[in-house]
């Protein structure tokens, strides 16, 4: 709907995976997994509500693999404590929007993601949110300064940084493999 979806699509293309930008309810029937990109969560909420996509995506994310980055991660949380944003609540985390501050506080750093075998992954944080874990069912895959920045619960993963802005396809590759694995099950 809005945000860095083209960058995600470029990465999927590099991995030889077909992708579409979802704008209509019917688009969801054509896909096996969904990436909720970074952008502005207030804008995304407004567009999903106006164009009657919120319910359809809510059903999708409860049943199929989903990967949320930054604003997308906020959309997967239980709450962002902000009435301008309506998250789907499929992950037991709370999100604090723009938790590190304004753009001038945006940063990049190296993180290790052991479960995905990714060492020194270049993680780009843009006006990033911070996640608070609410249950043991949430698996923390990576942290930065003791805060979780990549988490997994069931079929969903969420990052507070932007893997689509790095040159590293690792997380996308892992997500695509998860989708393939889920399809077989």
């Amino acid at each position, binding site marked *: 709907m809005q945000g860095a979806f083209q960058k995600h699509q470029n990465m999927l293309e590099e991995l030889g995976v077909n992708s579409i930008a979802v704008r209509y309810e019917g688009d969801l029937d054509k896909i096996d997994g969904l990436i909720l990109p970074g952008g502005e969560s207030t804008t995304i909420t407004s567009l999903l509500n*106006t*164009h009657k996509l919120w319910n359809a995506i809510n059903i999708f994310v409860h049943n199929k693999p989903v990967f949320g980055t930054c604003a997308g991660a906020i959309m997967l949380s239980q709450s962002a404590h902000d009435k*301008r944003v309506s998250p789907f609540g499929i992950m037991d985390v709370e999100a604090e929007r723009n938790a590190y501050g304004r753009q*001038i506080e945006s940063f990049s750093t190296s993180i290790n993601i052991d479960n995905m075998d990714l060492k020194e992954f270049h993680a780009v944080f843009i006006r990033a949110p911070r996640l608070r874990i609410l249950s043991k069912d949430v698996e923390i895959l990576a942290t930065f300064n003791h805060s979780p920045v990549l988490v997994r619960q069931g079929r969903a993963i969420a990052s507070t940084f932007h893997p689509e802005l790095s040159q590293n396809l690792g997380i996308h590759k892992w997500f695509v493999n998860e989708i393939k694995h889920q399809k077989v099950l």
Partner: protein
Amino acid sequence: MEKGSFELKVGLAEMLKGGVIMDVTNAEQAKIAEDAGAVAVMALERIPSDIRKDGGIARMSDPKMIKEIQETVSIPVMAKCRIGHIAEANILEALSIDFIDESEVLTPADEANHVWKHDYKTPFVCGATNLAEALRRIGEGAAMIRTKGEAGTGNVVEAVRHMRTIVSEIKMLTQKRQEELMAIAKEMGAPFHLVELVAKTGKLPVPNFSAGGMATPADAALMMLLGAESVFVGSGIFMSEDPASRAKAIVDATTFYNDPEKLAAISYGLKPGMKGLDMSEIPANERLQDRGW
């Protein structure tokens, strides 16, 4: 950990893609813009059509007004500095503004030099009327380019001209052989390494947005169809009779720019937009797009 890198500046511009950035002059308008789904707001004292009408020198906004807007909305807040006004740029960075627009809408402070934007941690957006101008601004460190259009007119014709020029010049570059690029760079007056990069990739190295004269949902859709990655709307919203509905309609049209039926529904029954100005009504020396080079 790194802050203020070019990658991070362009990163924020990436997040604004497919969205609408709206000019606002106070916190109340900023709230209307955010509620309508704007991805960012541009805080400025007077909207371009009033600047045009009132005349005088247009300067950076009062930090008090900028602060009030920052406290009201959660989306990024942008503000304008005059072309070449290093001190205004410094002040906006001190205010933690999310994006600085070095803008021809304000009265230029320096007729020869633009701000050296690499010196800042804050990303900059600059206007351009053609590819060479865009590449000069990127060479100085701009993390986003927008067409200049002709601000404050409600007339999209100049934005169309600038976007078509930029897109066709990019296409032209991709058809050139390597040994021709140096002569082209000399001719254009653009940095060679950027000319070479555009020839190789077929696109600008930073997001390419559109601004200047958009007044209707169809105008926004038009600019997206021509290759804009997002749109700025200035006077078009708050000079219209029902800003909230028009703002929302323009946001929707930017997402569904390629769906005529949706666009028809989005445009249906909107209250009148701003009256607008034909280019022939503007004396050549009052054209904002000719400021900067």
